[in-house]
């Protein structure tokens, strides 16, 4: 039976592909979760159940792991995920103003998804590009040397 989630993807197929790629090994739980997260934007409950079944790890442990790491999400996310670097160097370099501009533009709080399902706003730990801070990531695109004025232009690029 194939299960579909909100993003219209076949969860079963994606989980099976991830599990197969990592040889169904219990110690590969995190790479498997990352893969599923990457494919679906988050890890729905049915994916967690399937992973538990396939690699013989109790559901409670799969969930404990999935909810521990910041780059894994067990809650649905928007079409695009913005990860804003909240580290000190970016903060010192004017990150706060950019952050405020971002909040103003998106009208959501960190951790939330916009009502139209387009954006999810998250903070992230250091992306390691402090020299070009403030920095944020939109999906896989990384933007450095940000100023508040650039925010609307950047957001406009995404459908």
């Amino acid at each position, binding site marked *: 039976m194939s299960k579909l989630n909100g993003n219209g993807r076949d969860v079963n197929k994606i989980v099976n592909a991830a599990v197969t790629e990592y040889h169904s090994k219990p110690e590969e739980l995190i790479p498997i979760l990352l893969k599923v997260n990457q494919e679906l934007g988050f890890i729905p409950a049915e994916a967690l159940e399937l992973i538990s079944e396939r690699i013989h790890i109790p559901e409670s442990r799969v969930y404990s792991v999935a909810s521990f*790491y910041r780059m894994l999400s067990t809650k649905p996310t928007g079409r695009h995920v913005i990860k804003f670097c909240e*580290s*000190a160097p*970016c903060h*010192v370099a004017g990150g706060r103003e950019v952050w405020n501009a971002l*909040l103003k533009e998106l009208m959501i709080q960190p951790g939330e998804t916009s009502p139209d399902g387009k954006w999810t706003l998250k903070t992230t730990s250091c*992306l390691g590009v402090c020299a070009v801070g403030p920095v944020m990531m939109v999906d896989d695109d990384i933007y450095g040397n940000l100023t508040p004025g650039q925010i609307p232009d950047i957001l406009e690029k995404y459908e």
Partner: protein
Amino acid sequence: MTYFRSHILVCNDPECLEKGSMEIMQALKSELSSKGLLDEVQILDTPRIGNCESGPEILVYPEGFHYINLSKENIPFLVEEQFLKGRPVNDLLAPPKKEEAQELGEPTAKEIRVVLRNCGKIDPQNIEEYIAEDGYQALAKVLTQYSPDDVINTITQSGLRGRGGAGFPTGKKWAIARDSVDGQKYLVCNADEGDPGAFMNRSVLEGDPHSVIEGMIIAAYTIGASQGYIYCRAEYPIAIRTLNIAIEQAREYGLLGKNIIGTDFSFDLEVRKGAGAFVCGEETALIASIEGKRGEPRPRPPFPAVKGLFGKPTNINNVETYANIPQIILRGADWYASMGTEKSKGTKTFALAGDVKRTGLIEVPFGITVREIVYDVGGGIKNDREFKAIQTGGPMGGCLPAEYLDLPVDYEKLTQAGSIMGSGGMVVMDDETCMVDIARFFMEFIQDESCGKCVPCRVGTRRMLEILTRICNGEGRDGDIELLEALSAEIKQDSLCGLGQGAPNPVVSTLKHFRSEYEAHIYKKECPAKVCRALIRYEIQADKCVGCTACARNCPVNAITGEAKKTHYIDPDICIRCGICKQVCNYEAVLVT
């Protein structure tokens, strides 16, 4: 295939040819032949060894001796000493310091690039470029000439200490791992560079991945590990991709996998991606994470060297430590130990960030002062403002004020000053930085990253954050400073892992050096640096405002009123002090009071 124990590379560059390098080659051939060494020593010609100014030049491998200014007369003695007696002829060797200066093209006078020597110079996705820069020569040398003991001795003599932060002597660490009796052993590279403001490891992984891989293979050979893992944070997708390409190429070239370089030593490597947890930089948490568990540290003992990954003896070093290894092997322990201070040898990479003109990556010998780093290497403070503090060692480090500008940077000195080396992040702050805000900021980071396993860190950091937040909000109470101090002392003393034990450091160091700022917040309800929102007001100076309306248009809460071309006004009751008006004003009319 014939096996040569030594190789002589003779430079055949036009300049060297002109200076007679072919005659040198002939002389070498006849001399070696007369001593019956032609079966053991191979002579090759190769383009460009040094800069040919001191030609004819030759290189002797695997030792990597670089002889210059040779003449035919030197050859018999050289062959006798080098190939019969096995010792270098020092008089003919190229001076190492000079060679380095020429080869590496030091970015600034204070820098010496060992770990970063190839970064930005070679194409990291092409193993041949690394090999061209003497890559894997150290590995070849170790596998053919060194016993594990020899490697440990060399590393111990070099004085190399773990670059992950704690500074444990690497040679000693390897010796412990080697002495573990259990059959299966693992080697782990900690590439979970989580300190905000630190990105040295990322640069090495992205720019010169093979140096780390080579260092790891040497370590694996030394301790007897057959499988290794590089645990890299998922925030570094490019580093992970580059590493995977490098590993694949190394495998293709027989440098990883079974029977490395034709010897009976086998070792393979795998990259493990983190998933966003700062605490996984702690070695026991990192191990748990590789095993597919929540990244929670566990008490030590048992130490990973005895019981680590999958319950087996495991050696963990960080990226920079491994990247140093090939150079130490090639250039010798003495060369490495000649740099740095008495107890901290060699060079250290730092990531320079914050309010410094030249942010970026530097590599300097230990012992350099903070002033030299900030002003000579970093070019001074942005906008020529005042230096206020430098934060070293990441979120568990401390903030040092201007009094420490002349502090020589090494493991011990930084610790004595109330900060730590950490992995090498340095955040420079100017006088517009509020130290209470900074302390609150780091505490927010730590309490967000606390795994929650132990009470002092889980609860203590949250209580501290609450206190710091209320101080920044202008709601500080008498006794808060003392409470912070008491909590700091206990959290440091009682927490399970380094994260908790170091968590109070930013507070402790700012309380020590910037106590008056805390007092101003609490007792005068003032933020001297004009940062803390609740304690400041934004005002528009009538004499500077031209009425361009930029501020009013950008204000997210419509707190600014005013007609075009007339002075604008900010309603303090509506204003949320986000600072956007100040950012967008081109006339510096917005003032913070």
